[in-house]
């Protein structure tokens, strides 16, 4: 439940990043998105019979909706930025004469990666499966998974010629420089987010450091894809 607060703050920044409006507006948008997410989650969870007003205490019911609402709110934000993008961007291009402005900030890129990672990893995070998968894997599997995650992340954004790709990659800066500054940092970010999610959903209790790292790596795989894809989607 306490996940919602930092997330909401993050969402407001995210919107601020997408649309060049002033800050209080972003905060309002964030709350609107969360409200939309909350209502949608409430309706959907009720429809699927997940909400049980008789057996569950109000705490549990609110908790279920509040957590689901976070994912739904990011979804709502995405829809907003996706649908609003074309008109907005044209306008902005006219204004500033360059559409690159929005994409060039390093901090912004990292933030987008973080949002993408959260968005994709939030859905499997509360389930037991991530932990169960980590029990079944051998150390060799884990090392391979780490490498695969990094390679996929790098390939996704820098090697594959794709829409929204960071096309202004300067020719002089070596591939290693880009790899270190974006992919490695991105993956490190993904690992931290995975750790945060796993801790939030109570999977770390009583676990040895080794098992926590393993769970983080498993969680990190979808998160890494989310982070990499975010720069194409958002």
């Amino acid at each position, binding site marked *: 439940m306490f996940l919602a607060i930092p997330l909401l703050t993050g969402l407001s920044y995210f919107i601020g990043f997408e649309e060049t409006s002033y800050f209080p507006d972003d905060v309002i948008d964030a709350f609107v998105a969360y409200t939309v997410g909350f209502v949608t989650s409430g309706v959907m969870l009720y429809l699927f019979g997940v909400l049980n007003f008789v057996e569950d205490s109000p705490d549990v019911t609110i908790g279920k909706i509040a957590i689901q609402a976070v994912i739904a709110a990011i979804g709502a934000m995405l829809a907003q930025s996706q649908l609003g993008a074309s008109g907005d961007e044209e306008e902005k291009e006219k204004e500033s004469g360059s559409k690159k402005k929005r994409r060039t900030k390093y901090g912004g890129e990292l933030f987008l990666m973080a949002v993408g990672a959260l968005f994709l990893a939030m859905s499997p995070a509360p389930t037991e499966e991530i*932990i169960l998968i980590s029990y079944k894997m051998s150390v060799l599997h884990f090392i391979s998974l780490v490498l695969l995650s990094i390679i996929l992340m790098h390939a996704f954004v820098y090697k594959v010629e794709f829409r929204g790709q960071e096309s202004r990659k300067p020719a002089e800066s070596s591939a290693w420089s880009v790899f*270190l*500054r974006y992919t490695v940092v*991105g993956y490190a*970010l993904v*690992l931290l987010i995975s750790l945060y999610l796993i801790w939030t959903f109570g999977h770390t209790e009583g*676990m*040895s450091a080794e*098992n926590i790292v393993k769970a983080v790596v498993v969680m990190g795989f979808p998160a890494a894809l989310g982070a990499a894809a975010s720069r194409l989607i958002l």
Partner: protein
Amino acid sequence: MAENEKENEKNDRKKTNIPALEWFFAAVGLILVVGVLGFLIYHAIIDKGTPPNLNVKIDSIVQRENGFLVKFVIENTGDETAADVNVEGELKKGAETIETSGVTVDYVPSHSEKKGGLFFKEKSGGFEIELHAKGYNTP
């Protein structure tokens, strides 16, 4: 056109001046990623693949209206994870077993511990409680 190109070139040159902060992040990120890999490799080397070794310890005993609750901690000191661990508790007075109780713990990961509890109906005190793991599954 020529002017444009010039400007582009200028922009490109600007971008190659990578801020120190970015390199700082890169260094921190690299340390973290290499650290995780190193940690995994380190464990690959020291882990000998010993089977689950389960110890059940009494955490606390709580008196309830209709008996006792025995809270326990189950610890796995082996290198493998145990699933469906069957924990049994025996309530003994002297050599005689008065009551048994049991629970299944879903997972006890390697080098980790999980908590649980067993209920007993016996109301009178002066007994001993013995806890042990009866068996497990591979996950």
